[in-house]
Every structure is written in structure tokens, then in C-alpha cells.
């Protein structure tokens, strides 16, 4: 128990040290931080904007903004939370520039046939293998189709594994709002999963 706590503390200090080194203009620290957060940051952006090309563009913009603003970063704060806040601002600005009607209604780009439809047309022998793979696609599709405020909260909680307080700080909303969004998001997701796939594919 003590060893775990010490390891956690050490990891936290190391992260802070890297951020502090970046603040002093250390290029190696940039490489370390980029490698550490690249997948999580990209996933978060992709969940927000739903388009891989846009997410990659925002990914680049985020890191450029980070190095531009690093002098204003308070080392006492979590670098992770600060990084995600920078990314979030850029993504929200991008979404606001888009046509309002497409802000939350559009599904992910390039989807022509739903996973449920593919399951229905699959050969019986391949069905078992297909189900596992399709289930993941189905869940990803349903998550992508949720309104922004719900898919963002769900991805921060379940994929990024952020604490509720961290999510509240990042989104600048009260803790109760985070809980409400989590509950409604999950309810919406389950309802859509059941509508799309009936009982079997996701269970």
C-alpha cells in the first residue's frame, strides 16, 4: 500500500517536473509530454469533433497553443487538466464556427451502414466473431451520436478516467451538473443501443 502510494507520488512529481521543464523551454520535455498524452488527447478531441482529420488538426493546434501559453501555466495545477482545457477551448471554438444545425445532430463521417445492419446480414457461422467486433463499433457509434455535452462527460469519466471534481473543473460546471450529464448520457446511450441492436448484440 505504502509502496503504491510512493510510486503514485513519484509519478505525479515526474509529470510535474516535465511540465516545469517545458515551462523553461526544454524541448526534451515537450517530446516526453507529447508521447505521454498523445493518444488520450487525440481520443478526447476525436470524441468531441467526431472527424479524424479535424481531430488531428486540433491536436497540432493544441500543442502549439500549449508551448505558446506555457509561461502562463501554474505548476501547482495539474498539467493534464490544463492541457485538456486548452484542447477543449480549441475544439469548442471549432464547433461553434461550424453551422449551428450540425453541431450535435450529425453522425460520424463516412458511416453508411449501421453495425446492427451488418450484423443482421452476416453469415451465421461468422456471427459470434462479428458480434464482439461489431459491439465495439456499435458502442462507439452510439457514443458519437450523443449530444456534445453528454459524449464529452462520458468520455472524460469512462475513457479518460477523470475524477468527478476534475471533470467539473474542466467543464466549469458544478459537480451536480456533471452527475446529471453522466446519468442522462448513460440513459440516452443505453436507450439507443437497445433501439439499434435489440437485446443481443451489446449484451
Amino acid at each position, binding site marked *: 500500500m505504502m509502496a503504491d502510494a510512493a510510486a503514485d507520488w513519484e509519478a505525479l512529481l515526474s509529470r510535474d517536473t516535465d511540465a516545469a521543464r*517545458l515551462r523553461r*523551454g526544454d*524541448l526534451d520535455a*515537450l*517530446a516526453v509530454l*507529447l508521447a505521454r498524452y*498523445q*493518444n*488520450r488527447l*487525440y*481520443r478526447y478531441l*476525436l470524441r468531441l469533433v467526431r472527424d*479524424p482529420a479535424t*481531430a*488531428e488538426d486540433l*491536436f*497540432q493546434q493544441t*500543442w*502549439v497553443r*500549449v*508551448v*505558446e501559453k*506555457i*509561461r502562463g501555466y501554474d505548476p501547482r495545477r495539474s498539467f493534464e487538466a490544463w492541457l485538456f482545457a486548452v484542447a477543449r477551448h480549441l475544439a469548442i471554438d471549432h464547433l461553434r464556427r461550424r453551422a449551428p444545425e450540425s453541431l450535435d445532430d450529425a453522425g460520424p463521417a463516412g458511416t453508411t451502414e449501421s453495425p446492427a445492419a451488418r450484423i443482421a446480414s452476416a453469415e451465421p457461422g461468422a456471427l459470434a466473431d462479428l458480434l464482439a467486433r461489431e*459491439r*465495439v463499433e456499435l*458502442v*462507439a457509434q452510439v*457514443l458519437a451520436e450523443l449530444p456534445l455535452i453528454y459524449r464529452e462527460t*462520458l468520455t472524460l*469519466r*469512462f*475513457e479518460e478516467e477523470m475524477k*468527478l471534481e476534475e471533470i467539473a473543473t474542466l467543464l466549469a460546471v458544478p459537480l451536480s451538473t*456533471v*452527475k446529471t450529464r*453522466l*446519468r442522462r448520457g*448513460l*440513459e440516452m*446511450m*443505453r436507450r439507443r*443501443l437497445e433501439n439499434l441492436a435489440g437485446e443481443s448484440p*451489446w*449484451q
Partner: protein
Amino acid sequence: MAVNEHEETQTLLPLAAAGALEADERERIERHLACCAACAAEWERWRLCGLLLKRLPTPQPSPLVVKRTQARAGARLREAFDEHSTQVGIWLALLVAWTLTLGSWVVVHVLTGGIPAAADLFTGNGWLWVAAYTAAGWVLAAVAGAVLGRRYRTSRGLA
């Protein structure tokens, strides 16, 4: 079994799947689930919902984008620090100019009229001359700083 307890459990199950319950809420739910088969079945569905979300594969940016990002952000980092160093240099130059301006005025007075003349400086119209002389020094230093900054930005293609 209380109807209220059953309804409360149904409402809280999604939050339980998200690990967002307070300790007392969690205890109440656990007690209820132990004796309510319908809620226990519901809980399994919500739990699965949460698990599916946690197990979604993590999409990754292409290595090319990561490499390009590192190059672009690295270049911007160097640029930002160069700009900062230049700014610090200009402010230091301004500070030195200001100090020299004040210092030289006193030194000139000491050399030409001795200590009493330097003391006289702070009486009568002496302050006015100091202010005018200092302001002129400041303006000149600011112009020099602006010219230097502009030349620097132009040389780096930023202007």
C-alpha cells in the same frame, strides 16, 4: 420493500455504473440490490454499459501527425523563448538607460559644482530638469527598443 427505495435505486443505477455515488448512496443501493432481483438485473445492464465504454479501443493519431506536431510545437517553443529573451533584453536596456540618465545628471552636478550642487538638485526647479531629462532618455530608449524589436521580428519573418 419500500417503493421509494426501489425508485431511488433505479434512478441511481446509472450513476453507480459511472462510480459517481456518495458512500451512503452506495450502501443503500447495495442493500437494495441484495433483495431485489429486478434491480439486480437492471444493475447488470448498467454495469455492462459502463464496461463497454471503458473498453472502447483508443484511437491513435497517425505517427506522421505526431512527428509534425512535435516539429511545429518545438519550433514555436524556441521562437517563443527567443522572443521572450529579446523582450527581457530590451527591458534591461531600458532600465540601464534610465539608471544612467539619472546617475549621469547627479554625476555631472557633482563634477561641476560639488556635493552642495547635487543637493540643490532636489530643491527648486531641479526636479523639473530631472524629469525632462529622464523623459527624453526614456523616449530615446523606447524608440531604440521598438526599432530593435521590429528588426528582430522582420529577420525571423514574424512581422
